[in-house]
């Protein structure tokens, strides 16, 4: 079963976009927790 071009595009860009969102989410959590003094 050969994957379609659409699936391939979603896999490439989706993984990159989700990695970027993860980075942003963790960084925002860091700022938020620093502000609330809850980092550790």
């Amino acid at each position, binding site marked *: *079963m050969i994957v379609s071009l659409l699936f*391939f595009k979603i896999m490439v860009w989706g993984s990159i976009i*989700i990695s970027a969102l*993860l980075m942003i989410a963790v960084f925002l959590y860091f700022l938020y927790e620093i502000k609330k003094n809850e980092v550790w």
Partner: protein
Amino acid sequence: MSSLWINVLIILALGAVFIISSWYISRKVSSIDEYVGGRGKLGVAFGTTSLLAFWITGNTVMAGPEAAYNDGILGALGYAALGGVAVIAFAPLAKRIHEVVPNGRTVGDFFRHRFDTKNYNLFIVLSLVWVFGFLMTQGIGGGLLLEQVFDIPYELAVILTFFIVIVYSTMGGFSSVTGLAFFQVMLILVVIVVVPPLVYLTVGVSPVYEGMQAFDLGSLDLLAPAGLLLLFAGPILGIGEVFMDNTFWQRAYAIRKDKVTQIFSLSGIGWFFVPIAVATLAFVAIGTQQAPKEVNQVAPFIAEIYGGEFASWAFLIGVWAALASSIAALLNSITSLILNDIYLKFKPKATNDQQLSFAKKLTIAIGVLGLLVSLPKITSMLQMLFFLGVVNAALIFPIMYGLFWKKLNPNMSFVAAISAIITGYIVYYSVGSLQGVVVSGYVSFLVCWVGSMLKPDNFDWKRLELAGVGQEENK
């Protein structure tokens, strides 16, 4: 200046930043709890990155693309599933660990209070073998990567990496390791978010897909047998590694109870999608017919072609940060296991200062030992992981049932672990490595389940609440 010395300078500069940051963090570390765990204090940012930093090793950044180069789409998905499924599967365990072992420090605390002495001793031996074996693979794998990909001689790469990691992880223990992990993961993620788009915006997604169709149609096949085996056996291997690895138990104890779900969800996303993002570089190699000298060099090879020297150095920074964070986490994990489950058995009255002093010396000793056994290049990362995978899989069900099912009989758990390891290695040598891992997990499940149904125990969960109590009270 040659690229070798530029690469060495990059590592030295990064190492200096890590050591100075660790010194800054370590100024506040005064208790042994902060040095080996932290007990329920880590928030989402540091909790997530401490989990990501351990798993996203230098080899993940390199081996993900290698799997994709060998097995195409299924290789990338299989490698992602190996880690991603494991961390998501550990999430309910982490929540349960907080509930039933609220004062624990290590996985040994759970085994000592949930099972009997023979189970505990067997587990401690197997756990130390596993975690030390994994440390070796990181040293050897890291040295090979830096030698093959970045022209740094193997011995120099191993010595530099271990020296820097020993210095910074000895200073502040768990606090330094988790504090630095945040910045190391950010570095890795920046590389992964910048380099693949740079490559794909230059070469285009459609031309890569068309190239894969023309040159290697099998790489786009979702039913290729080798890829399917990795896709299904990989998660069992990963789950086994994660469930018995003290590094994960340390973090399960260390993160805040109310943040467990958020932290494991974010980590699971990272563990699944980060390897895929970096593995997509291998598709460019297949689609454009540009083969590297060694297959594990495929990601930096493609990055350098389309991103130039900037991308190559970015990769070095990402790979080395990933390596350092994994080795540091392992050093601290072994230290906490030996301190908690061996040293304190012989010196139960040791004061906080005595424990702290012992833990620092132990971190240095383990680091030096790890360095020495990594120098001769004894084995490869993948061989070692598959070999130890049989042991990992044998302990999945004693741990899982042990946390959730009060009928689990400790004698059956012991028989399950031993019989699964024996059967697993018979299959490992007679049929195949991944098949051995699957059989080990299956035998462990059957013996635990059927044996405990026939001779059920009636475990009192309150016994687990005693695990770890009093360790911090010897001031």
